[in-house]
Structure formats: structure tokens, C-alpha cells
């Protein structure tokens, strides 16, 4: 079966979630473009959007309409040519509305999984719980035909494990989009041992169709992305525990967050990133990895405590940031959680000045992540920055250099232990999926 044929009938499970809804928007628009080709006029296209949360399914309806409208507004030049034969569609508004109708008409919303029974392709993006995922795949195996392929968005569960426990005979592939999937170009592709060539090919064709950058990862829990991020986060957490003896917990957290953002030139500080992903999600992924890798070090007391206290981070449905390690106003950090007191300490100018003094100055020729993002001479400027950093004798510079070394070691270990096939693949995931300016395996340390 070709990709075009498979795109005639697709199901997304967990469609009302963060990842599922984004995947649904991408697939709906590709389906609609196929549907509009004259040679496909007699075919029926169906996209089944399945989620057990019925209330969220209602929200998904208006979300899909708004997103498909945006897609149409951005591709009106193309759409006008697809609709040339429709004499009644003259203005952009009419063409856009027609596309929203046409793509909307392929959508089917359901809380009931059985509608996936004719799907040629199933995207799964339900919560990260291997028992529930296996139960779901067992059910799917029963209702779907033998040719159906399953694309799981799991962040950490080995694909072979799902394959074997659900008895899918290699009909499953790890297709790990990043959040938000419509915007993020990276997809980590994970093939289980038993996977067939047709599915592998389908994966790469689909990536091309969706204009994604595919990076292969081996089937080892956490894969490249979380394999790196979890250990990077654990390192920051261990540094936090060490530094809090001197600077108290609130101060130590500020130090590590600031150093990782401003000295390492990352888009956000490490604790802000953990909040963005969700502290509970961070814990959940650690647990999956700990179990599958048998590595007891993949655990953090601080994380466990935060989850127990119900301070979880993550996002509100409008995309704004919930409080976690940091407190946010309009998604900007304004406070830091004091774990012992169970309350937020508000960052004030005097305190900030004092802490910045303890951290020490940034190297001269101040550069920022944002400033370098579009800079064509970025490689040289990074080199200058890190060379200068190594020459500075300050707390911030020392912490930054150790962090850089640790991050590099984590990357190299991913290659050595066979998670990643090459240093380039590790770097591709961190630069594309996490928007780093440089890969962890670099010449700066």
C-alpha cells in the first residue's frame, strides 16, 4: 500500500491531547489536499479522532477548525489553484472556507475505539503508561486488519516491548514528534527489532510529506531525546542538592537555572525546561527508563518531592506555563519554589543583583540565545564565547564548564551504549528538538 492509499483512512488515538491534536491537524491537511486532486474525486477520506475524554473532544472540534483555517490562510496561493474548477469560489475567503469544510468533512470524532477498525494507519498519543498502552494495542490488534500500521508517540517505552507484549508482529514504529508537533520539525524514528521494510519506508515518506526532519534512534528506553534530557536534568538536580548547602535551595536553583540559560546559551534554563515538560512527566519518563534500563540512578528525590507536593508545572490549555520549580507571570519566571516552606519566593531586584554578583559576569561581547539564533556567524561567536568562559574564574563560569563537560559525556555515552548511531544524530536531536544553538558533542570543551 502506498502512503497516499494509507492516508485514505487514518486514526489518531489520544487525539484531544497535546500531541494527538497537533498530529491530527497535520494529517487532516494532507488528507484534504489528496481529496482535492481530481483523480481522487471518487475516494472517501476518513480521519478518526479518538479520545476517551469526551469533553476534550468537544474542544478538539473548535481547535481543529481554527487550526485548519490558519493552515488555509497560509496556503491560499496553492488552494486557489486546487480549486480552479470550482466556479463558485472566487474570493480568498470562499476558497479558505471551502478548504476548512472539505478538510473538516474528513474528520470523525469518537470516544469509542472501534471506529479505527478500517484504519490503514493509527497514530497513538495516549498517556505515557506502558500497561495502558499495551492494553490499547491488544484491542487494536483485534479490531484492525492485518495491514494496519501503528505509529506510537511514546517518549520512553521501548517499541519492541510494546510490540512483543501486544503481539503486533513488527507492525509498530516509534514516531516521536516534539511538542508542539505542528511547529517542531524534529521526529525521532525508532524501529523495533522485528519491523518490516515497508513500514520503515512509510515512515520516511510520511516524514517527507509532513516536511519533518527525521532522526533515527535505536530502540533503547528514552531514545536520544529523553535519553539526553533526563540525564541532563538529573545532573542539574544533583548540582542543586550540592549547591544548596552554600546558597540555600532557592539561591541554588536560581544559580543553575541562570547558568544553564545565559552561560550555556540555551533557549530556557534547565528548571524552566523541566517545568515546561511537566515535573510529573519528567518523573514518569525517569521511571520508565529506570525500569527498562535497570539503572537505579535514574531517580531524583527532589522531583519525587515536588510531585508529592502537587507542584507539577506543565501548561494550561491556552499554552501558558503553570507554576513548577519556578513561578510564572505571562510565562516569565517571577518566583522560585521554596520546597521546605512550600511557597514561592518572589524574585526582587536586590536579591537578583546579589545572586548575579555571586554567579559572576558573563564573558565580554554579551551574546544571547535569541541574538545568535539568526546569526550566520554563530559558530565563531560561540567559539569566542566559550573560550572566554573557560578563562573566567567565577562560580558561574565554573558551573557552566562542568555542565558543558557533563552534557558532552551524556551525549557520548548515548553513542557508546548504542542508543544513537552517531554524534551527529545526538546533535541533530538537541539542536532541532530542543533548539540548542550547538550540539552537546562539540569542541568547546
Amino acid at each position, binding site marked *: 500500500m502506498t502512503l497516499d492509499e494509507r492516508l485514505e483512512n487514518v486514526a489518531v488515538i489520544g487525539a484531544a491531547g497535546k500531541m494527538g491534536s497537533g498530529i491530527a491537524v497535520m494529517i487532516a491537511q494532507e488528507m484534504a489536499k489528496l481529496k482535492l486532486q481530481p483523480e481522487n474525486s471518487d475516494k472517501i477520506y476518513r480521519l478518526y479522532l479518538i479520545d476517551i475524554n469526551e469533553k476534550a473532544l468537544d474542544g478538539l472540534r473548535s481547535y481543529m477548525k481554527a487550526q485548519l483555517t490558519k493552515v488555509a490562510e497560509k496556503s491560499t*496561493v496553492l488552494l*486557489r489553484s486546487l480549486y480552479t474548477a470550482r466556479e463558485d469560489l472566487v*474570493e*480568498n475567503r470562499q476558497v479558505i472556507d471551502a478548504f476548512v469544510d472539505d478538510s473538516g468533512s474528513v474528520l470523525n470524532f469518537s470516544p469509542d475505539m472501534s471506529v479505527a477498525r478500517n484504519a490503514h494507519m493509527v497514530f497513538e498519543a495516549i498517556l505515557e503508561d506502558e500497561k495502558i498502552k499495551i492494553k490499547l494495542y491488544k484491542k487494536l490488534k483485534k479490531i484492525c486488519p492485518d495491514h494496519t500500521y501503528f505509529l506510537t508517540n511514546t517518549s520512553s517505552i521501548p517499541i519492541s516491548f510494546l510490540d512483543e507484549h501486544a503481539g503486533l508482529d513488527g507492525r509498530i514504529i516509534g514516531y516521536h514528534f516534539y511538542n508542539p508537533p505542528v511547529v517542531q520539525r524534529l521526529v525521532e524514528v525508532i524501529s523495533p527489532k522485528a519491523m518490516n521494510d515497508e513500514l520503515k519506508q512509510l515512515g520516511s515518506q510520511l516524514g517527507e510529506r509532513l516536511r519533518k526532519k527525521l532522526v533515527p534512534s535505536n530502540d533503547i528506553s528514552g531514545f536520544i531525546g529523553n535519553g539526553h534530557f533526563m540525564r541532563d536534568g538529573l545532573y542539574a538536580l544533583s548540582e542543586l542538592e550540592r549547591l544548596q548547602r552554600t546558597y540555600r535551595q532557592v539561591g541554588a536553583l536560581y544559580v543553575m537555572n541562570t547558568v544553564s540559560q545565559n552561560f550555556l546559551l540555551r533557549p530556557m534554563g534547565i528548571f524552566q525546561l523541566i517545568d515546561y515538560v511537566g515535573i510529573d512527566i519528567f518523573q514518569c519518563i525517569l521511571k520508565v527508563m529506570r525500569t527498562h534500563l535497570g539503572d537505579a540512578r535514574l531517580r531524583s528525590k527532589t522531583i519525587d518531592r515536588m510531585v508529592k507536593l502537587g507542584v507539577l508545572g506543565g501548561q494550561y490549555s491556552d499554552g501558558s506555563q503553570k507554576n513548577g520549580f519556578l513561578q510564572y507571570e505571562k510565562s516569565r519566571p517571577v518566583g522560585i519554589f521554596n520546597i521546605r516552606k512550600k511557597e514561592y519566593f518572589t524574585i526582587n531586584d536586590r536579591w537578583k543583583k546579589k545572586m548575579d554578583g555571586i554567579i559572576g559576569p558573563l564573558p565580554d561581547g554579551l551574546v544571547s540565545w535569541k541574538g545568535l539564533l539568526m546569526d550566520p556567524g554563530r559558530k565563531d561567536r560561540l567559539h569566542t564565547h566559550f573560550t572566554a568562559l573557560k578563562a573566567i574564574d567565577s562560580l558561574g563560569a565554573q558551573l557552566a564548564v562542568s555542565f558543558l563537560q557533563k552534557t558532552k559525556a551524556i551525549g557520548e555515552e548515548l553513542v557508546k551504549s548504542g542508543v544513537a548511531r552517531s554524534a551527529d544524530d545526538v546533535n541533530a536531536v538537541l539542536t532541532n528538538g530542543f533548539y540548542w544553538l550547538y550540539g552537546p558533542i562539540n569542541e568547546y570543551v
Partner: protein
Amino acid sequence: MPFFRKKVYACGGYYTISLGTGRKEFHPKKPRPGIEHYIKEAIQGSIDQVQSPEHIDEGVIGNFIASRFCHQGNLGGFFPMAHKTFQYKPCMRVEGACDSGGLALVASVKTILADIAECVLCVGVEVQNSVKAIYGADYLAAAGWYAGERKNGHAYFFPDKFSQRAGACFEKFGFDPFRSGMAQWYTNAIENARKNPKAQEYHNRNTSLYETGLSAPNPKAFCEHINVFDCSKVSDGGAALIFASEEGLKNIGVDKKDAVEVVSYAQVQDNITTAPPDLTKLTTCQIAAQRAYERAGITPQDLSVLDVHDCFTVAGLLAIEAAGLVEYGEVAAFVKEGNTKRDGTIPTNTSGGLIGYGHPTGATGVRQAVDVVHQLSNKAADYQVAIHTDRPYGMISSMGGDDKTVVAMIFRKSD
């Protein structure tokens, strides 16, 4: 015998900021002033410059398509709202697409020449940020022939029309020379806008304008031969100018030295259902300019300042040629050499033009006239250029549709 049977003057020019992307005040998601605000501010700004507003006899307002952008028609009705002098006086709205403002100028002057009124307040207005550009393109496409052209036209209907003109010019005159003329036009427009606090590009801090002007087009998302920097932006704004006879000036209490004489105009119409005869020329603009010069008894060399309708950089270049300042095919080099810069041989679009100031369509013709009047009466503040005593004239050329509806108007500095 002069074209006008009596003297007509222009004074009390005013315009609002051009609001849209680029202005610091502009936030696409926050509420913005409506069309009534711009009409009121423009009228008030103008009336504040006269002593006896009760002697203004009539109001004319140019507007293209508020009926779609703002769901508002019957714009004459906003004159009495803006100022009580207009209560129960004649007020009307005129329309000629992007030349609606130009037609408002002509309608005002005609009324005075016809001895119907001694003093007319002329306004132009448009508010276009009410919808996304992709839908605004639909509304603006009404400047072309809907039944005959829209269905097969581009998503961005007018940008594509001028993209085709740019393509034809590249082919005829060579890509590099013509493209560099367009990039220079963009550069001049932004540099001039930086001298005009009301311009949409006033806050533009780009240090490599010329390179930006050369950016490659993206035909998949926009047009084949032009990029977004070749286009005037989506703008909200209003402008006003008072026209008066000698007696009218006395009535409202404006000194002749604060006014500028209107010496001629030409309004020329081409058939909206036919294609332009030559994509590398603005034929209708050329006829309008020639007629205006003849009627004023002057030549292009008598101008000290010029304001042309650069809805696109290519339109700006072709308008210079149509105004008779250079021979056919030479305009790109003429502009590249700096002749149209503020210190060049013929300072053009000194307040930024449509690309730099902005293009609130229905206001544009009036805004152009206000700027030329400001230049000739030494009121152009930071963007003032030299007006030579032996060349006391300034001209505007304003265009609606793809070279369909054109007004050229010539002004003379008072002695």
C-alpha cells in the same frame, strides 16, 4: 488662457499617523481606533489651522471600501460628527479605488471652480487592519474587474498584478539593473519615513535596507517577482486639506502666504475591463501628467518636489517615468543614481511615500497633496527639502487600480 477660470488655493493640510505593522503602537490583537477616529482627527487637525471654520461650505471624503473593511457606508455623515460647522451642509463621499483620495481632491477643486462653494474641506480615510491581509486582498481586488479577473487572479490580487509588471520590466530592461532600482526605491522610502514621525516605517531601524530590498521572492507563499518589501503595507489613516478661492481664504481667515496655489489637474480614466497596453509603462499616469503640465504651462523640469503613487516599488519607478522625468527604460538607473533622494535632482515622496509612510488607500491621494503643500509652504519640518525659486512647482500623481484611474495635480508656491 489658463485652465482655471479663477484662482484656487490649498491650505490647512493635516494627516494622522499611518497605523499598522512597524508602528510601536500597533498590536494585531489589541483593539484599535475605528474609522470615525481617523475622520475626526483629520478634520479637526485641518480646522485647527483656520480662524473661522463656519465659512467652510462643503465636505468631500475619499474612501475606497469601508463598506467591507469596517461595514460602514454613508461616510458623509461623519462630517457633522467631527465638527458642527458641517451640520446641514453638503457632504459626500467619492470612490475610485486607491485613487479615491485623488478624486476627492478633484471634486473639491471642481466645486470651487463651479462657483458653488468658496471653501471645501477635503478628507481621505481608510482603515484596513480590521481583517488579516489575506482577506484584505479580497476587498482591495475590487479595484480590478471582479467578474472578468478575480476568479483566475492570484490570492494576493494586486501584488501579483505589479509582480507581473516587475517581471516584464526585468525581461525588457535586464534583471539586475531594474531590481537594483527597486531596492533603491525601498531604501529611499524608509530613509524618508525616518524623518516623518507619522510614518508607519518611522521606527524602522534596519541598517541594511538595500539588501533587504533585494530579498528573494517566495512564489509559493506570495508573488513570483516581488517580495513583501516591494509592497506598501496594510494601513489605517486619514488626511485632510482645505481648498478655497481667494474669497474663501479671506472668509476662513487664512493668509495667502500660508496657502499654496493649485494651478492645474488632470483626471484620466482607462477601461477597467481591458488589460494594460504595455506592462512596462503606466500609460494612463503618463497621459495625466502630460495634461497637467500642459494645463499649468510648465514642464517636468519646473518641479522642485514630486509625490507619486508607489503602492509597489515597481509602480514608483514607472510613475517617475510616466511623470516625464526620464526617457523610457532609464528610470532604474535614474533612481539608483540617487536623483529621487531628498537631496537629488527631483526629491520624490519626501515623507516616505506609500512604502514608507503607509497606504491607507482612500487617504493616500489627500496625504500626497498635504505633503506637497507642506513642502511648498515650508511646513514639512524634518522632512523639508529645498524648494528652488526658479522651480516653484510640486506635483502629485495618484493612481487607482492597475493604472486605471489617475489624478495628477500641480501646486505652486505662493509669491
